[in-house]
């Protein structure tokens, strides 16, 4: 398992020409599937800045590998909709479906093999990723 905070800044390398083609800036998360669905990159060679999760060859401990830098694209409408500030999870308050605030998200633990959100880290405790329902401008919602 890997934390967002650990993986941010990790380099993205193209296995085609062995060149570094970007660095992980932020994670794009889809609450419906409870998965990381893409990576927003910085320092990319071309205009595209988003790497959709299915284009990743391997999410390694030291680098994310992809087959070719052309896989870094402009986000499609669905990814673009998730990649806005109101959908970012870090720092947001967490409300249960019982209407109780249980803390704020400090970090997110995910499975680098498939992008699954394993848990939301709230500082002193963690919440199972399968309870994650949604995130908006006001709060992250989890099943009580």
């Amino acid at each position, binding site marked *: 398992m890997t934390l967002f905070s650990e993986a941010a800044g990790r380099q993205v390398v193209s296995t085609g020409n062995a060149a570094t083609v970007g660095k992980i800036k932020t994670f794009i998360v889809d609450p419906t599937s409870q998965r990381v669905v893409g990576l927003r990159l910085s320092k990319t060679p071309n205009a595209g800045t988003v790497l959709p999760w299915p284009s990743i060859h391997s999410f390694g401990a030291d680098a994310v590998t992809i087959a070719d830098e052309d896989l870094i694209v402009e986000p499609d409408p669905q990814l673009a909709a998730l990649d806005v500030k*109101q959908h970012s999870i870090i720092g*947001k308050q967490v*409300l*249960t*479906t*019982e*209407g*109780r*605030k249980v803390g704020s998200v400090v970090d997110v633990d995910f499975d680098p093999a498939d992008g699954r959100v394993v848990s939301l880290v709230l500082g002193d405790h963690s919440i199972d990723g399968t309870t994650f*329902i*949604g*995130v*908006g*401008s*006001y*709060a*992250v*919602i989890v099943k*009580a």
Partner: protein
Amino acid sequence: MSTLLRARDLAKLPVVTFGGEDVAQLKDIVYAGNGGQVTAFTLAGRSLFSGPLKVALAWSRVVGLGPDAVIVETQEHFAPLEAILADDGVEGGGSGHGDVLGSQVLTDTGTAIGVVSDVIIGVTTPGGLADVVGYEIKPAESLGRGEQPLLIPLPDTMSASGEHLVVPEAATGYLTDDLNAFGAAVDAFRTQIGENR
């Protein structure tokens, strides 16, 4: 588990969707029938200058009601109050709340124990009811309990007029000033008078 909440604390509580957006806030509580249950909430907008909304939130559409927020699946579930009341078979506005505040609480043996200052709502979610389980009262001097507000449990059914609320004498044995201990007091009281849920 049931959560106990003061009606006063519910006003302005944000209404938050599964999508994490605060789409409204609570304005008033609409009680059904004789004021024993919450049937709906009227809503106001979230921004400073937005007034009341034309739609309301039926209790049946509430996923969770807690100290920090009201959770709904989607704002699509908001509906005009008239439609909600018609669906629930409630006639008229059922505004028992406004009438209750300031009413004198009498025991069935004729002792005045105080004046209602707030309504205590017990919530069981999901799928449960929002039941009026007690009142916060400003105690009558004759009670000899000082001036701190006290909580008094209510039977599930009771008689009320605009002027007086009549509670069984037995309820006075469960007066407390602690909302955390009040749930147990309500249960014990309702068991004693033989109508525990």
